[in-house]
């Protein structure tokens, strides 16, 4: 750098402050002043946002690092005042979710033993049958899904949890890192069938994920899940 360059006036003014704010190099007191300007001065806020956009390709330099589950629990306690109230280290056996899960598991085992033969053709060989227990952490929606490769049908048993009024449940298959593919809206009823379209049959196999999202009536208008995923589970060979 030549001395002449050093004396270049701050032609940028606000734009330079915005750039420095986004780069993050300023001391605490200057950052505070600029943060207040961002909140009150829309023009300045726009300059800051332009810099955030310009430098955002550098974000790829941040690794994704798995967060311990305790952080989410503490966050929920902080935001919603629930989570881990009296028993700070709620062990597995004290966990309501565990007992609920066990109840669902017993129900599922019962279902497998008794109910599956009712809606799967008896002649299917074991390796053409796949099952998934679909559940969500934050909902009480529970389905058991059984896929029969011979008939290309998914039998769905609705164990618990209702769709909200004016909405449908839509079933998705997710293979590895590929985007979800819709298998269709799940008809209402306790034992229902979804026929898998010919083009989607190749997606279904052991280890893929089935997920159910809550969608507007008639299903997602975009071809991708638009509502929350209410339940999901891996398909496993029987």
């Amino acid at each position, binding site marked *: 750098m030549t001395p002449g360059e050093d004396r270049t006036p701050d032609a940028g003014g606000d734009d330079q402050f915005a750039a420095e704010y986004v780069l993050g190099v300023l001391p*605490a007191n200057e950052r505070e002043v600029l943060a207040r300007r961002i909140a009150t001065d829309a023009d300045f806020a726009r300059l800051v946002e332009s810099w955030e956009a310009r430098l*955002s390709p550098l974000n790829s330099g941040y690794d994704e690092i798995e967060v311990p589950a305790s952080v989410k629990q503490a966050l929920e306690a902080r935001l919603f005042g629930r989570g881990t109230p009296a028993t700070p280290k709620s062990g597995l056996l004290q966990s309501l979710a565990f007992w609920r899960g066990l109840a669902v598991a017993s129900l599922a085992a019962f279902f497998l033993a008794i109910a599956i033969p009712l809606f799967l053709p008896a002649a299917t060989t074991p390796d053409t049958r796949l099952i998934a227990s679909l559940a969500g952490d934050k909902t009480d929606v529970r389905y058991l899904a059984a896929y029969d490769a011979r008939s290309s049908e998914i039998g769905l048993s609705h164990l618990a949890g209702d769709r909200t009024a004016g909405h449908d449940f839509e079933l998705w298959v997710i293979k590895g890192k590929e985007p979800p593919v819709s298998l269709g809206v799940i008809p209402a009823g306790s034992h229902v069938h979804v026929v898998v379209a010919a083009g989607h049959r190749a997606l279904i196999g052991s280890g893929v994920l089935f997920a159910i999202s809550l969608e507007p009536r008639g299903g997602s208008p975009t071809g991708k899940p638009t509502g929350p995923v209410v339940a999901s589970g891996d398909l496993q060979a029987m």
Partner: protein
Amino acid sequence: MAPQQFTTQDITKLIARVSLKDRAAFDLLYRATSAKLFGVCLRVLSDRAEAEEALQEVFVKIWTKADRFVVSELSPISWLVAIARNHAIDRIRARGQRTAAIDEASELADERPGPEAQVVAEGERDRLGACLGELEADRAAAVRGAYLNGDSYAELAERFSVPVNTMRTWLRRSLMKLKECLER
């Protein structure tokens, strides 16, 4: 378990729903983005316990400020990373006069070219990478280091053995050159 793959559009919708205080959407948004935002907090703060605390605060901000995203022109993930970066950087600045310790640790900071070098490689593919390549190497490194690690002017000046004002001039000029290059 939720779908592993969220598109930009998915995240946009999730933030929109979070602005309506939809907790299911908040859960999904957390699943989709917490690992990245934790990466930001941990990189800047270099301390797991503090990064965990910071991440919670970041998501509290996301919960309360999600409505502001609607008026933002940033991509959703850039908007989220900006919240995390600003929060983590405010936190290290608030650690106060740790400068003495940082002086001693400056060699340690110098040992971190790995991830940055990686960014150079990845960055070459985009225009920002190309424009950083037009800067003198040490200035490009200072810009990247500042952005990714949250280094302050004081820390950078120490590391590059120049006065703070010189570092400030370097970086201001570098940023304006970057802008000019990106707008060409």
